[in-house]
């Protein structure tokens, strides 16, 4: 039986043929036809037109055919709800079938059809199936309740299915129990407060019994559910642990990890002096080590989790260093994770071995890995003092290799070593200075400048060195500029006589020529310090630095505790709380470790706290750069810095930032004049009907100004946190809300984030968010007292900000705030306060006072807060204004992969006071014209173009190739040693041909085989390819070698030759050629 033939039919009119075959009398022919339909569906063709014909085949006693028809139904029922009704009768009949397999199949499939009318008919059969005599049907029905809940939660509650489901936990069959638990857990996640999964000792006992008997998957469901339970006391906790430990020997790694999760969590409750506690710790190590012999993908998951476990309980794996040694053939992701854990486990006892390994790794091939290894050597030096000397000499050896990235990385870590052990290893400075010229990364340059400044008195030519850096001051990144400024001031304080000119030069560069506020402010501070009191300046600038801590990259303790509760899941792989990557209410509740009954864990936490605060005196890198933010909002994957970063989008991004920097800035200066900036947002959606709300959310947010300000990322988190979990693409959430609550519900309110951690404010924790309620802006604050004493006398003040936000009344915290108490306050805000432009634009600096001290923090408000209700512009005015907008105030954006029709988009946006002024349809495109008014009277106008694209031309929709459709010529390069690259070229050429208007012969395409120097390894003969390309594709063919610059010029000559030849035939050669030659029109991909 060869079914692959079904994949090959592509001829026209096949739908009609299929229709005929589907209605054939012969059973075999029918079945063949359905197979063909399914094959087409798989590859993405639209075969929904065959709906009635396929449904007609449903009444069959052939189980295989029936399953195929059901598969079709699940896919297309939603788009053809009326026709889907035709299937109901068969479903209901099948639910009564004597064969349990068919009963289960029917109820399983019905649950997957998201059509209201079918759902209505599902209730009765489902009720019967939940009580079916056959366990197979019951276990299927249990999952079906979860499906139904996903479609219509209210219905499930009204029909009392939840109670029936709860009863199934006591079922005699273990698999039914497992599926019921899985379904209940999922439903409970969307009702965080309902006591749905009523976990009490009796149910726990039932679950533990079922655990021994059910399938591996069922064990996972049950263990994951157990992890949500909080035992009453340490005794219960111990008895559960005892019954869970045997799972550690299961062959399925997921079972093992879930068991580890339960144990790690319940262990919190056991007193540390208990014998059992020690036994448990010992039992945990071997299974964790065993996970490392699993397949690489699982190893990766395991390693990410071990990383968390090692931070939480280092004692478990402290003797197992060797198993984390990197193997030569490990995939890179496993290598990097192992390295991380090695450093965490490094101690005086094993440091010699670790160093020997790290030195070995530093000579490997993969750049990221080598860098990390070099960095790891530095971290060892800081962590284990005895090894510092050896580490430094190892680093020096590595610097001698002169491999550029190794040198740079080494210098960065040597800086840290200097800070940790001042006045100990300065002898190496000379070696470092030799490598000054090879440093091209900002971090390395900044580190080197810091070293020069710090040890200026020992470096004879420090002034020359710094002066050489100063020449290109404007081209440096901010990090380097700041460091350079400080270093020169240090130098001046140490050698005032010969460096006066230099210091003046840098101060004027920083204060006058720079528009970076940080740099400017620092420059002014130094200037005033130096001019008023040089002695004080010396005390400030050359003050003793606080020592840096031993552990870096630690996860913040509360986050770590939360992640421990998520062992085995995606959250533990990303090291982010689920709320950072899951939208909606699902699974976003914070999980907490249970409190220990007796002894205090508190002895550990201050240490960690210190570590974090010590790290945070480094310049905080938490605020994502605008580029990142835009990337986030657009859901584009801009993050990986690959070589093929598209030139087109990046230039657009620049435009967007320009606009923010200059455009709005100038607008704000002159408020009397109503001007407007204007965005054109283009939405291309490959398949219009399928609307995924979330995506559009992020996407439309991409209109630049909105994007940047809406995506208010949390600020004020300690820098030690590393990756700041984005609260979510601001507009993304905005759109979600529109769908869920209704359009008029008002603007989106982001969840509260912690603005001021207790650690930084003597025990006062402030979290908050902004909301716009009935036209008034509110700042919703939660004050939590985490200190030991009562807090009173609260007051609040804002710094000047971009939109003049100011408290409209005093802060009302009436009663004194006693320890561990939280109070919620809603503070109305006005927009009439003093105005000053902030960076970023939506930054708000706040001071809060209480009886203890004054605390400062900054936060960012979503710009949608400032969109006023009367922001709908008159049509005529809109038209007139639109024309008058100068082009420099205009930015264009393209959003890909967005599926939402214009009405839905417009409704959603209106919820946030973004109003649709007009709508127009051109060809297949919907154009929305929208207006927004800010509180300070500035208008923003936007054009939203929603394009229904051609689903086949996926490559073009990819932003990488944007604009290529208009190119004058193409060079397609492949690697002669790699078949896949040729396949890729083949595909691209096909798409060029498919997508260009007119015939392909119009566009010159030149296929180039590169790596000619590796002739020996080529995958096929030159002749074969050249014949294919020249004869069949009618394209030019050249082989070249970039390494030896062989035939490279020829290739461009050839290309021009083709272009000219084609042009001549059409009689406007010069124009065409000119077009191709203009440098700015030539985009290199």
């Amino acid at each position: 039986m060869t079914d692959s033939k079904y994949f090959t039919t592509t001829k026209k009119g096949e739908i009609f043929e299929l229709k005929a075959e589907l209605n054939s009398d012969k059973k075999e022919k029918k079945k063949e036809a359905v197979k063909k339909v399914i094959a087409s569906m798989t590859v993405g063709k639209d075969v929904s037109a065959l709906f009635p014909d396929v449904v007609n085949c449903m009444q069959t006693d052939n189980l295989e055919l029936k399953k195929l028809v059901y598969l079709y139904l699940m896919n297309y029922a939603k788009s053809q709800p009326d026709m889907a009704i035709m299937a109901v009768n068969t479903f209901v009949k099948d639910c009564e079938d004597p064969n349990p397999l068919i009963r289960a199949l029917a109820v399983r499939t019905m649950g997957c059809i998201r059509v209201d009318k079918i759902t209505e008919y599902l209730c009765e059969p489902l009720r019967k199936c939940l009580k079916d005599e056959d366990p197979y049907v019951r276990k299927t029905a249990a999952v079906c309740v979860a499906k139904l809940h996903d479609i219509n939660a209210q219905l499930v509650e009204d029909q009392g299915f939840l109670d029936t489901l709860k009863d199934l936990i006591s079922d005699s069959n273990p698999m039914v129990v497992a599926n019921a638990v899985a379904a209940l857990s999922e439903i409970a996640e969307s009702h965080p407060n309902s006591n749905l999964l009523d976990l009490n000792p009796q149910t726990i006992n039932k679950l533990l019994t079922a655990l021994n008997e059910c399938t591996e998957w069922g064990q996972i469901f049950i263990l994951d559910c157990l992890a949500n339970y909080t035992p009453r006391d340490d005794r219960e906790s111990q008895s559960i642990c005892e019954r869970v430990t045997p799972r550690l020997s299961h062959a399925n790694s997921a079972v093992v990890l879930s068991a580890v999760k339960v144990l790690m969590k319940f262990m919190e409750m056991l007193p540390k002096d208990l014998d059992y506690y020690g036994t448990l710790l010992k039992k945990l190590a071997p299974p964790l080590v065993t996970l490392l012999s699993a397949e690489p993908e699982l190893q990766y998951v395991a390693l990410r989790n071990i990383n968390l476990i090692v931070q939480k309980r280092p004692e478990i794996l402290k003797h197992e260093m060797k198993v984390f040694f990197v193997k030569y053939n490990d995939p890179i992701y496993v290598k990097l994770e192992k390295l991380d854990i090695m450093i965490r486990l490094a101690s005086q006892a094993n440091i010699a071995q670790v160093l020997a390994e790290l030195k070995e790794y530093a000579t490997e091939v993969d750049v990221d890995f080598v860098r990390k290894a070099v960095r790891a050597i530095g971290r060892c030096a800081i962590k284990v003092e005895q090894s510092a000397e050896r580490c430094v000499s190892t680093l020096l050896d590595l610097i001698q290799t002169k491999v550029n990235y190794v040198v740079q990385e080494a210098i960065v870590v040597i800086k840290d070593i200097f800070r940790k052990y001042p006045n100990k290893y300065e002898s190496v400075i000379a070696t470092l200075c030799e490598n000054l010229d090879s440093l091209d990364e900002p971090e390395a340059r900044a580190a080197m400048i810091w070293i020069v400044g710090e040890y200026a008195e020992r470096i004879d030519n420090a002034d020359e060195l710094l002066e050489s850096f100063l020449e290109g001051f404007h081209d440096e990144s901010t990090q380097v500029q700041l460091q350079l400024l400080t270093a020169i001031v240090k130098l001046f304080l140490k050698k005032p006589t010969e460096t006066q000119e230099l210091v003046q030069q840098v101060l004027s560069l920083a204060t006058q020529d720079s528009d970076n506020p940080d740099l400017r402010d620092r420059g002014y501070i130094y200037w005033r310090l130096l001019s008023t009191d040089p002695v004080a300046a010396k005390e400030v600038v050359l003050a003793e630095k606080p020592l840096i801590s031993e552990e870096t990259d630690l996860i913040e303790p509360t986050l770590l505790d939360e992640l421990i509760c998520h062992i085995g899941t995606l959250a533990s792989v990303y090291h982010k709380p689920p709320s950072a990557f899951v939208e909606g209410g699902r699974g976003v509740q914070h999980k907490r470790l249970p409190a220990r009954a007796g002894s205090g864990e508190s002895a550990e936490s201050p240490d960690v706290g210190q570590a974090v605060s010590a790290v945070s005196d480094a310049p905080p890198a938490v605020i994502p750069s605008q580029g990142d933010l835009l990337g986030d909002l657009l859901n584009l994957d801009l993050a990986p810095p690959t070589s093929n970063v598209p030139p087109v989008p990046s230039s657009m991004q620049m435009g967007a930032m320009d606009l923010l920097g200059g455009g709005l800035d100038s607008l704000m200066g002159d408020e009397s004049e109503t001007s407007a900036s204007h965005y054109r947002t283009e939405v291309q959606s490959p398949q219009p009907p399928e609307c995924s709300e979330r995506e559009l959310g992020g996407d439309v947010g991409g209109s630049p100004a909105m994007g940047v300000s809406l995506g208010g990322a949390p600020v004020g988190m300690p820098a030690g946190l590393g990756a700041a979990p984005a609260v979510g693409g601001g507009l993304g959430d905005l759109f979600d809300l529109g769908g869920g609550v209704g359009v008029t519900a008002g603007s989106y309110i982001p969840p509260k984030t912690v603005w001021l951690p207790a650690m930084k404010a003597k025990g006062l924790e402030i979290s908050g968010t902004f909301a716009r309620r009935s036209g008034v802006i509110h700042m919703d604050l939660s004050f939590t007292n985490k200190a030991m004493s009562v807090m009173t006398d609260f007051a609040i003040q804002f710094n000047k900000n971009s939109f003049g936000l100011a408290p409209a009344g005093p802060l009302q915290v009436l009663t004194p705030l006693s320890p561990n108490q939280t109070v919620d306050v809603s503070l109305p805000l006005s927009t009439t306060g003093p105005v000053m432009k902030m960076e970023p634009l939506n930054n708000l600096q706040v001071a809060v006072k209480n009886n203890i001290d004054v605390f400062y923090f900054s936060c960012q408000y979503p710009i949608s807060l400032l969109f006023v209700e009367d922001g709908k512009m008159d049509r005529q005015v809109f038209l007139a204004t639109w024309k008058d907008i100068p082009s420099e105030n205009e930015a264009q954006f393209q959003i890909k992969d967005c599926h939402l029709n214009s009405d839905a988009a417009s409704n959603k946006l209106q919820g946030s006071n973004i109003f649709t002024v007009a709508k127009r349809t051109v060809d297949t495109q919907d154009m929305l014209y929208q207006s927004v008014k800010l509180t300070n009277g500035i208008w923003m106008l936007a054009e939203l173009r929603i394009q229904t694209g051609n689903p086949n031309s996926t490559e073009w929709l990819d932003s990488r190739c944007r604009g290529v459709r208009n190119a004058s010529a193409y060079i397609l390069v492949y690697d002669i040693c790699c078949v896949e690259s040729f396949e890729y070229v083949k595909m691209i050429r096909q798409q060029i041909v498919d997508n260009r208007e007119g015939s392909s012969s119009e566009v010159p395409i030149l296929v180039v085989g590169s790596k000619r120097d590796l002739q020996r390894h080529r995958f096929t003969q030159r002749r074969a390819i050249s014949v294919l390309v020249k004869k069949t594709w009618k394209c030019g063919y050249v082989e070249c070698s970039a390494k030896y610059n062989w035939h490279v010029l020829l290739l461009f000559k050839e290309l021009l030759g083709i272009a000219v030849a084609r042009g001549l035939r059409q009689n406007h050669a010069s124009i065409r050629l000119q077009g191709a030659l203009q440098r700015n029109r030539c985009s290199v991909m």
Partner: protein
Amino acid sequence: MIGGLFIYNHKGEVLISRVYRDDIGRNAVDAFRVNVIHARQQVRSPVTNIARTSFFHVKRSNIWLAAVTKQNVNAAMVFEFLYKMCDVMTAYFGKISEENIKNNFVLIYELLDEILDFGYPQNSETGALKTFITQQGIKSQHHTKEEQSQITSQVTGQIGWRREGIKYRRNELFLDVLESVNLLMSPQGQVLSAHVSGRVVMKSYLSGMPECKFGMNDKIVIDKQGKGGTTDEAGKSELGGSSGKQSIAIDDCTFHQCVRLSKFDSERSISFIPPDGEYELMRYRTTKDIILPFRVIPLVREVGRTKLEVKVVIKSNFKPSLLAQKIEVRIPTPLNTSGVQVICMKGKAKYKASENAIVWKIKRMAGMKESQISAEIELLPTNDKKKWARPPISMNFEVPFAPSGLKVRYLKVFEPKLNYSDHDVIKWVRYIGRSGIYETRC
């Protein structure tokens, strides 16, 4: 839970696409292709997050299997499921290839419908699945009522891996102890890390629902028995004590789901009702007292910038009466190698330019012997500043004993309902030790 499952060929064309959850759209199919399959670079992580959608993938030959979700799923479970999916497909139609997948796409959809419901993995034991998911749809219609309920009770039941009523004329079972020795040795001959990961693979052809008990020379069990000091066992345990290495310390072991784990945890006895046919009973890992079958002694000398001299000696370290087989030593050479001359005492050696290595093969070698190879490697002068990374010398072999020292002590079979006893079962045991990652740095 899993929102969708896609299978792609190496070009990124979709072969199978099954969506389980409403939050996963067709665009997810394209997102993975564009961002992972077509990303012309090494895979940096098996989990990718694109636009808040997480993709888990594994690759089998040139086929990509991807599971997609938007929720905080159990990541380990998803990967285990993907591997299981591969096993099931292999059991049904052999090698996972584009051709086979296209030929069996109807079957695959049927399987996916059965083993993954709303993203929750269900029973995926091939033994059970094969009873009711067959490639002939009509056949399943002829099941009698009893047969049907037997199927469902097996699929959902406690012993989901074995069906009732199996009969063999000859009750037979085969035990294979397969071990792979992993070693990382420094150039000076110091063991950096060594461990054995072993598997006990069982092929059972037994009638009825037999209850089995498996015993090996596990140190904990032997010590316990020794301490217990029962009079009749005294002689045995003394014997164990006198000959030194009679028991081995197992660091950790995992079992097939048929083994009663709670019983192992409390009594350390391995008892189970085996699946029919071949399966893996247990996996274990040992790190103490490993017999390293071979020792590799490398000597690399750089003679100027354009020449390398390599000498490698291998020594076999086991009983002279035993024979190691399929010995292969792989000596890496720099990328700029222009020519190689090899001389070896035994076997055949060849320079393979495409693999950048000298491959030295020896068919057989007895214990306590030694052999040597020397090679001169000529290099092209390059201006590449970067030093050659010197990958480790790796080795492959097969020996007829268990390097961990594991011995099977007994495997008892009880079937109370049928009339055959432990003595009637024909049992076969063999030990095979293979090289895992057996590397010596040079």
